[in-house]
């Protein structure tokens, strides 16, 4: 990429070999700053990485030489340009691999410890008590202090900052356990729990690894979104095709997209026609046909045609960026039910630490009474039998460690966010964007769904409904009338004209050549088709054009008009030949979706500015009860209508995001129906990318399923802690079992959230 005259901020990461102290860091940083173009260099000792900012491409060989000259080496020259750092989420694959290695290293030492300890429990200490204790102690050093170092470090560093987290509990639990090791060599008053500490650390690392994996799966959807975009684009510059990075695209650039390629960014087709797979953006599973003048979405796949596309949106303004932003926002949003869990987690660890001291104190003060109690369970909890014969101090340590490691704030902390994350990801894949997490909770109380008619239940654009032929115009069939009208109208951009042309195309009628086309503002059009003079428009226009209206059937026309249809008339060579009626038609899936909503127990209302008769005709077709039709509602009265209904129900309002914004905001749950690429809608709690009502049903299903998951997760997390902590306090839980239970409880919560992906939300 040539960038001589463009100032490009570049970021580069290099791996440095041979560093071992803080002064090395300074040396390497200084060396890197000597490289031409480098504006900033910072080196991290822990990761052996150098992070470089530069204002131009830097020569990696110069950097290598500079670093070599101070005694270090650059290991890897793999670079990743991070111009788009907003979108760059750390895939942390390397971190995962490290976590896996740590886990296995830890088990490599903990497993022999476990076997040795079990032998001691079942037979006798081998070769003798002293060597057994010493051996266990030595083996335990590795799991606790090497793979476990990061945990200890974070745990104790948190304490230094007068705060505490999960790691603090594990760090305290394992170090207390470990200290009993050396002490046990000095006095037989103390049992050796160093091996227990090693096993706790191993379980902790295992739990963390599995949980991180599961969380990775939960955030998969958004990661996939981030990876969707194309990396390069082919643009036309001075008549030549050149390939450039997507980041360097500018608005109004002309892109060339070949069949099978991804469309690099949002744009408008200026040449060509193709079917486009938009499933990744809108969830629409069938390819969409697009032609000149249509807008296309970046990251969608061009199937079969060669397209020339003018760039309309780049960077953060693109559809995909907006979706990612919305999903991220949703994941950061609050759900009321979470508040209590939040209050608990924010004080959880300190409270557990106090409880641990309490446990230790009571066991030390009243060892016999407490062990008498725990001995009751010795039949099925073998370690409680053991507890009565060991010293009071060891008994106290045993129970305290168990309390420290059983408490699981993670499950509480993960319960809601993970479910929300999976839900928003799953939604985004299906064309449902959850803007506010709160909507998931409110949705469960919603009893009434209010739908705007135009553009929500109906298509919001006219379709040809009837073709009327003049009485004596039998020579003309409906088809040929339509063909003539469509041909004449083919040059017009008027919505009615487009509807007529579309209908003709749908019926497989070919268009004839038009000459002398003229649009009459507010009236219609005049044109010549195959030598015939055609006038299409209002009756007034036809009168003005001195058309012979002898066969004009005003009764029939009037009847059509009372049905809410718009009627245009056609004359050939100044004789009236027929009329075409157009109306806003119901979307294909509206009826099914609405009956689904009724099955789900919602009262369905329709709101429209139309007169009652027209509104009821539509309502009847889609199965909305006549009394639930709110007709003649002017746009500014929509909010008032919603408010009125809110006196009786919790209300979800469904409408388009622009005209209906106030009503969407007023409703308990506002569901905005997007059309195509415009999802930067500020109103609405949930956005449906496609204007299909079946998507509304899916969105409601998704909300309900997600909320159920959140409730299940929170219940499990609370239940687990409420039951397990007292058991540990009473000395009934072996610390190793406690830790294993702890690790599996947070895994359970995350896995349960992941199960949400199995929910069938499509109708």
């Amino acid at each position, binding site marked *: 990429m040539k960038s001589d005259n463009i100032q490009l901020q570049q970021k580069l990461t290099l791996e440095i070999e041979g560093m071992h102290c803080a002064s090395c860091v300074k040396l390497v940083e200084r060396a890197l700053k000597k490289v031409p173009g480098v504006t900033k260099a910072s080196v991290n000792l822990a990761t052996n990485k150098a992070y470089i900012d530069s204002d131009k491409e830097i020569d990696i060989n110069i950097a290598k030489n500079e670093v070599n000259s101070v005694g270090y080496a650059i290991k890897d020259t793999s670079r990743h340009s991070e111009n788009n750092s907003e979108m760059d989420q750390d895939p942390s694959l390397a971190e995962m691999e490290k976590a896996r290695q740590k886990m296995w290293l830890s088990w490599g030492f903990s497993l022999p410890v476990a076997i040795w300890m079990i032998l001691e429990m079942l037979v006798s200490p081998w070769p003798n008590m002293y060597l057994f204790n010493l051996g266990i102690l030595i083996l335990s050093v590795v799991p606790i202090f090497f793979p476990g170092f990061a*945990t200890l470090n974070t745990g104790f560093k948190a304490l230094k900052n007068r705060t505490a987290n999960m790691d603090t509990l594990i760090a305290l639990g394992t170090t207390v356990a470990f200290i009993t090791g050396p002490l046990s060599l000095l006095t037989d008053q103390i049992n050796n729990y160093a091996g227990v500490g090693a096993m706790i650390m191993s379980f902790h690392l295992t739990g963390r690894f599995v949980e991180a994996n599961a969380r990775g799966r939960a955030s998969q959807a958004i990661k996939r979104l981030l990876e969707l975009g194309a990396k390069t684009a082919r643009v036309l510059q001075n008549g030549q095709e050149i390939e450039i990075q997507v980041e360097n695209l500018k608005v109004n650039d002309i892109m060339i997209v070949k069949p099978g390629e991804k469309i690099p960014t949002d744009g408008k087709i200026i040449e060509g026609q193709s079917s486009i797979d938009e499933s990744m953006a809108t969830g629409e599973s069938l390819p969409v046909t697009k032609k000149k003048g249509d807008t296309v979405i970046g990251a969608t796949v061009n199937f079969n045609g060669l397209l020339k596309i003018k760039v309309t949106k780049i960077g953060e303004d693109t559809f995909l960026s907006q979706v990612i932003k919305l999903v991220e926002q949703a994941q950061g949003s609050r759900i009321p039910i979470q508040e209590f869990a939040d209050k608990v987690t924010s004080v959880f660890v300190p409270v557990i630490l106090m409880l641990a001291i309490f446990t230790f104190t*009571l066991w030390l003060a009243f060892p016999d009474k407490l062990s008498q109690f725990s001995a009751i369970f010795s039949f099925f909890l073998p370690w409680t039998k053991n507890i009565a014969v060991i010293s009071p101090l060891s008994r106290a340590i045993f129970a305290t460690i168990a309390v420290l490691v059983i408490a699981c704030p993670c499950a509480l902390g993960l319960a809601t966010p993970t479910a929300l994350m999976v839900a928003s990801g799953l939604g985004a894949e299906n064309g449902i964007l959850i803007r506010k997490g709160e909507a998931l909770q409110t949705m469960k109380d919603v009893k009434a769904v209010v739908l705007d008619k135009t553009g929500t239940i109906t298509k919001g654009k006219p379709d040809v409904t009837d073709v009327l032929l003049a009485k004596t115009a039998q020579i003309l069939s409906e088809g040929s009338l339509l063909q003539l009208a469509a041909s004449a109208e083919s040059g017009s951009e008027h919505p009615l004209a487009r509807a007529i042309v579309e209908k003709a195309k749908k019926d497989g009628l070919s268009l004839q050549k038009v000459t002398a086309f003229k649009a009459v503002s507010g009236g219609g059009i005049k044109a010549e088709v195959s030598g015939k003079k055609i006038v299409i428009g209002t009756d007034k226009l036809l009168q003005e054009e001195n058309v012979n209206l002898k066969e004009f059937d005003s009764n029939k026309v009037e009847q059509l008009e009372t049905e809410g249809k718009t009627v245009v008339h056609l004359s050939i060579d100044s004789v009236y030949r027929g009329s075409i009626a157009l109306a806003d038609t119901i979307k294909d899936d509206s009826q099914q979706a609405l009956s689904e909503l009724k099955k789900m127990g919602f009262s369905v209302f329709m709101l429209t500015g139309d007169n009652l008769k027209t509104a009821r005709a539509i309502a009847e077709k889609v199965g909305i009860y006549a009394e639930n039709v709110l007709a003649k509602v002017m746009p500014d009265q929509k909010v008032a209508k919603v408010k009125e209904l809110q006196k009786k129900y919790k209300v979800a309002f469904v409408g388009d995001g622009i005209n209906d914004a106030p009503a969407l905001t007023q409703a308990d749950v506002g569901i905005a129906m997007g059309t195509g690429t415009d999802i930067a809608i500020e109103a609405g709690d949930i956005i449906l990318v496609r204007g299909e009502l079946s998507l509304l049903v899916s969105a409601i299903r998704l909300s309900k399923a997600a909320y159920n998951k959140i409730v299940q997760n929170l219940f499990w997390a609370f239940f687990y802690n409420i039951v397990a902590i007292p058991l540990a306090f009473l000395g009934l839980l072996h610390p190793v079992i406690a830790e294993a239970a702890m690790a599996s409880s947070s895994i359970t919560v995350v896995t349960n959230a992941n199960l949400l992906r199995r929910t069938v939300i499509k109708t």
Partner: protein
Amino acid sequence: MTPDQIIILLSGTLGIIFTYWFFFAGKDTVLEAAGPKVNIKVDGGYKPSVIKLIKDKPVELSILRSDPSDCLEEIVLPVWNIKKFLPLNKEINIKINPDKKGIFPFHCGMNMFHGKIIVED
């Protein structure tokens, strides 16, 4: 109750009181935002953990996580609907516009590490 037991119980009580004081009555490090950029270090907690901002003066929080623990890998600012992944050793910038007065907490992904933003006139 034997004297031993009384001593044990008393020390335990003191220990609990100390723990309470240690975590809940500690002083936070407060930083008043002087410029348009606030640097927050994430290392066993947030430094500083209390940030004072002036109403209607947008700032950019520049957050650097140097703690490898995945406990701290996300930061959540609920009032602004922000949840960000913090890659290790990489500055993440978050722009916020403090348009209303009040105390707004922020925390890690699991709500165990805390900080707050105080917006004043």
